[in-house]
């Protein structure tokens, strides 16, 4: 099974979402974009391999709230957090709960792609671990 790794992009800002999706596609990822955490939870069937790019402050369920929901699921994908705020407390808490990276907007394309690669690598290890278990 050789599918391209899938990136789920969740950000309420249209410009940010469009530009990030564009960058990721140009960089060879398959991208699914969502304008809110709620929309993601309602419509997305997560693939086995992938990574989530998650904005923090959004209408409805927040990024932190979504991480909490995903932690209750088995086979949850790794999360890269992006935020326009210096929410230091939230950052510490989300990193503790397993977020791969915490990027402050605006960030460099390399930072994002490195974080995604780190997330996908962890995802692969986790899938592997589940298979062996």
């Amino acid at each position: 099974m050789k599918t391209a790794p899938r990136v789920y992009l969740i950000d309420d800002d249209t410009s940010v979402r469009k530009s990030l999706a564009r960058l990721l596609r140009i960089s060879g990822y398959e991208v699914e974009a969502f304008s809110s955490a709620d929309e993601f939870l309602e419509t997305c069937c997560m693939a086995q391999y992938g990574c989530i790019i998650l904005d923090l402050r959004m209408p409805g369920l927040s990024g932190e709230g979504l991480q909490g929901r995903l932690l209750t699921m088995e086979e949850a994908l790794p999360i890269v957090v992006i935020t326009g705020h210096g929410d230091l407390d939230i950052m510490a808490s989300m990193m503790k709960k397993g977020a791969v990276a915490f990027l402050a907007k605006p960030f460099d394309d390399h930072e994002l792609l490195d974080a995604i690669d780190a997330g996908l690598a962890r995802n692969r290890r986790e899938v592997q671990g589940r298979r062996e278990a």
Partner: protein
Amino acid sequence: MSQDKKEDPSEALELAHLYERAPIALCVTDKDHRYVRINQELCDINGRSMEEHVGRTVHEVIPHLAEQIVPMFQKVIDTAEPILDYEVHGETLRHPGEKRVFLGNHFPLISKAGEVQYVHTMVRDITDQRRAEASLKEANDRLEERVRVRTEELVILSEELKTEAAERVRAQEEASRRHAELAHMSRVRSMGELAASISHELNQPLTAVLTNAQAALRLMARKKPDLQAIQEILEDIVVDDKRAGEVIRRLRTLLQKDPVAQEAVQLDELVSGVLPLVRSDAQGANVTINVESTPNLPPVEVDPVQVQQVVMNLLMNAIDAIRRLGSEGGEIKMEISSAGKHGVQVTVGDNGPGIPAREIGDVFEPFVTTKPGGLGMGLAICKSILEAHGGTISVESSVPRGCCFSFTLPLKQPPPS
């Protein structure tokens, strides 16, 4: 006494005397309306002597009044009933050329046989009384007119008071709207929060611009760049750059140089209005706020909401500073006093940790902060607001610790004379 009785004047003589001298006009006329008896008063009224009356008829003596008098005499004779309070109007010889009013009472004098033999008449000249009554009525009317006019004035005054009351209600609504704005600011907590939300709004387009530019660079690096895709990216960059510019433009509007609403404001009252909004923060940090104000300070002309922002920001900064020292709490001293002839000064002093000497010169610069997690916008905005009002702000370290911010605002300019 009993001896004297015999020497008393006879009853008839006494009556004759009384009749003669009574200050009321009297006469007796017979059935032919001839005067039988008449007293001096009536003679005087009629302007004729007693001799000219007795034995003559009313017609003969006062022909010009006979038309009014004779039928009435006749009626008393015919009916044997008295006629009371009968008015006669006309001239007399005593007051020639002057219309006068007489009030008469006429009684039948009845014989033992039961026939009316004479008419007894009592007349009073009530002209002067009538005139007095008339002038009294006139005075009364004038008084009533004055009351009416005054009442109208009072009605108008009452309308004006109603209008004034309505205006007062409007002013109160305005004040409560202001208070609501301030309460909202209190929720936003400080202008640092405002700056944070602005920086968030700037971050979004900046992120999109950077990401798009880097995506375009990646496309350019390919052997055959997709120019169509690159053009779309550049168009998106233009849109997001304009969006960032719009955020900056709105920030400028927020800090516009010309204050929006200029009003004459008592700074001590303005400060009193801000204190409730920081009370819970002060209590939470165990901070007491003491305000001293010079009485009867002249008003300053400012945008009250903006100056309230300044006061609130300085107070919140002071509370935050004291809080950083730990739970022991502290004190904020505010003083509102005259700054020479041309201004009013407000100082906010705290006994927090103070500002390091090397940093104190820069605290009003944007993005300079001594607060952990502060954005460095609050004091910059305070300075901007005060300068827009023609005021100043300064800071000095206090001894042994803490710091003291002072700002001045110019007095309301008197209208050019």
